[in-house]
């Protein structure tokens, strides 16, 4: 393997790893506040990708595409919390305590069908956000990559940094930690628990939306693309640990890079290796590489 190929595979792996990281982050934040995951999160990514496709095709500039798609999907985040999660949060010990798995998944299926109805079943390609031509590349020391690949890698790094600050250095972060620890006590202390939970779902949706907008020009999109990213995001957050945002970043990038090199050296089983690593890591460290045994008390 020559050095240029090595860096090329690394860059592609980091870019896709950035997407897995953003999805994993969404799971991290909703799990922290409600101990639930949105199994329709990948479909929010798909919705954002299609919205971005429509706006970009209509000639909207990149900031409008980004803000428009993210805002619309953020609203969907509020809706999924209200209709698919909250009804089951108020009765955690009832027989349907785990019903949110089904309802969030069902919400995602509804979104998939909406996408099919509006945009059709075929694959589509989203125009590039940061260049005028589909094959415009950035070249650095003989290594070529699409601008969106760079953007998604940078976005995941910046968002992790902001995330860390917001969670551990802000009033909102303290509220999240309190809600994660005990909702009833948090409410007694004057924290608006519902608002904190809703904000976590909105944040999850925004992260999925950012991934969707940035991934559209890199891959081809289709209504069922979300499931793939959901599964990989789940693997990433499991390895990174549901309690550590830095862990999610490390696991996400590592997953993408392992996937890239596995496909280079043994493409027949390329996608398998990353999951094999996840499997062995979870056998020896069930809480993930960076997980803590008692989440929510940090």
């Amino acid at each position: 393997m020559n050095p240029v190929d090595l860096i090329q595979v690394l860059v592609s792996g980091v870019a896709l790893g950035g997407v897995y990281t953003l999805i994993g982050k969404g799971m991290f934040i909703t799990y922290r506040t409600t101990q639930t995951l949105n199994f329709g999160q990948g479909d929010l990514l798909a919705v954002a990708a299609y919205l971005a496709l429509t706006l970009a095709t209509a000639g909207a500039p990149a900031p409008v595409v980004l803000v428009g798609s993210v805002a619309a999907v953020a609203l969907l985040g509020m809706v999924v919390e209200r209709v698919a999660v909250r009804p089951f949060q108020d009765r955690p010990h009832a027989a349907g305590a785990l019903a949110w798995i089904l309802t969030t998944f069902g919400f995602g299926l509804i979104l998939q069908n909406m996408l099919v109805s509006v945009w059709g079943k075929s694959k589509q390609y989203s125009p590039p956000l940061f260049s005028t031509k589909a094959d415009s590349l950035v070249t650095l020391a003989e290594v070529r990559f699409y601008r969106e690949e760079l953007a998604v890698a940078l976005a995941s790094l910046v968002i992790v940094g902001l995330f860390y600050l917001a969670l551990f250095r802000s009033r909102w972060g303290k509220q999240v930690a309190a809600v994660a620890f005990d909702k009833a006590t948090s409410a007694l202390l004057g924290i608006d628990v519902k608002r904190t939970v809703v904000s976590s779902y909105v944040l999850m949706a925004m992260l999925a939306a950012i991934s969707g907008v940035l991934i559209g020009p890199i891959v081809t999109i289709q209504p069922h693309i979300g499931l793939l990213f959901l599964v990989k995001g789940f693997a990433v957050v499991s390895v990174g640990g549901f309690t550590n945002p830095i862990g999610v970043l490390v696991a996400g990038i590592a997953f993408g890079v392992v996937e890239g090199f596995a496909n280079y050296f043994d493409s027949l089983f390329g996608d398998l290796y990353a999951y094999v690593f996840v499997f062995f890591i979870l056998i020896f460290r069930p809480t993930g590489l960076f997980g803590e045994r008692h989440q929510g008390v940090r």
Partner: protein
Amino acid sequence: MTKSNGASALGAMLVLCLGATVAQAQGVKVGVVQGLSGPPAVVDYGESYLQGIELALDDYLKASPKHKVELVVYNDEANPQKAVAFVQRLISNDRVSAVIGTVNSGNVAAFAPLLQEAKIPLMIGPAVATNLTLQFIDKKPSFIFRCALVEKYQLDKMLDWAIAGKKKIGLLHGTSGYGQFVAAEVQKGIAERNTQLVGVESAAPNVTDMTPQVLKLKESGADLVLLFHESPELFYRALPKAGYRPTVAGTAALSAAAMLRIVGKEGMEGTVMGDSLDLNQTQAKEVDQKLRAKFGEKYRWPAVAALGHDAMKLILGAVDASGGGNAEKIRDALEQTKGFKGATGAPAVPYSPNDHECLDPGDVFLSVWRDGRTVKLQ
């Protein structure tokens, strides 16, 4: 004629008329099982083939038909269990006279024995696996026919062309059942021609990036890449990053309109694929225009839609020739079809007792993308 004899004759005439009316009202049912949802690669095939079927039926019904023919359509979602269940329903509940389907060769392999057993003709399409009709041809009579591009015919043409051009050939295939099947066929064909592939790469069906595979093929020195993957557009997407521009050749999937929309005119330029639709032919042009008018933007794959059209036209011709909805007579009429004029390269006498493929190796040719259009490769 006595009064009673007259009444009997009148009664018999009434019964006959009533019987004929009932038969006319019941009509002839043709079952269709296609992949109409699920992976886009499946849906594009299934919907396009169905568009062709619907157009052929429309044309038939507009031309004062001898029989009232109706379609019973089921979506197997590329799922073999569902495909088998739907075929069982078509046989037992819907009582169809013939069945057309489906996209996945594995699904066809699962339900074809049921139709052979039930003595109901099956028109396979658009499934491409080579042996689908061959395994029934010795049954005498075989009820299994096909109107689709047979994989081996395309591959043979492609490999002969590639080797004549003295190209270094690489292969990129999917890891699905279809991808593995094609990879085996390519490698067999290459071995038969006493040559070898310079590189073989594969990718999972739901892959999102093919940069690693493209880099490996570039490293292997392949100047022709045989591409058999459910998401061929991802291969093209990775080419500029690798600074690599091989000739690409593959199945008819590369002729889909979606490829042009996603990859663009420049990206597709020079790509070669198996084909049976020559749009310079009058009949093909006419069917293409009708499909365009009927389905508008939803018409996205002329090569596959034309095959669906010919499949249905063959069935309708057999229904007319056999005099109605008797499945065994339709089978016989299909096998004896003469003077057929289709949109694809299917010959006037497409079938015989020993050949149930509507396209023979000589009817398949190579097409190439030139300036945003597919044209016959000279």
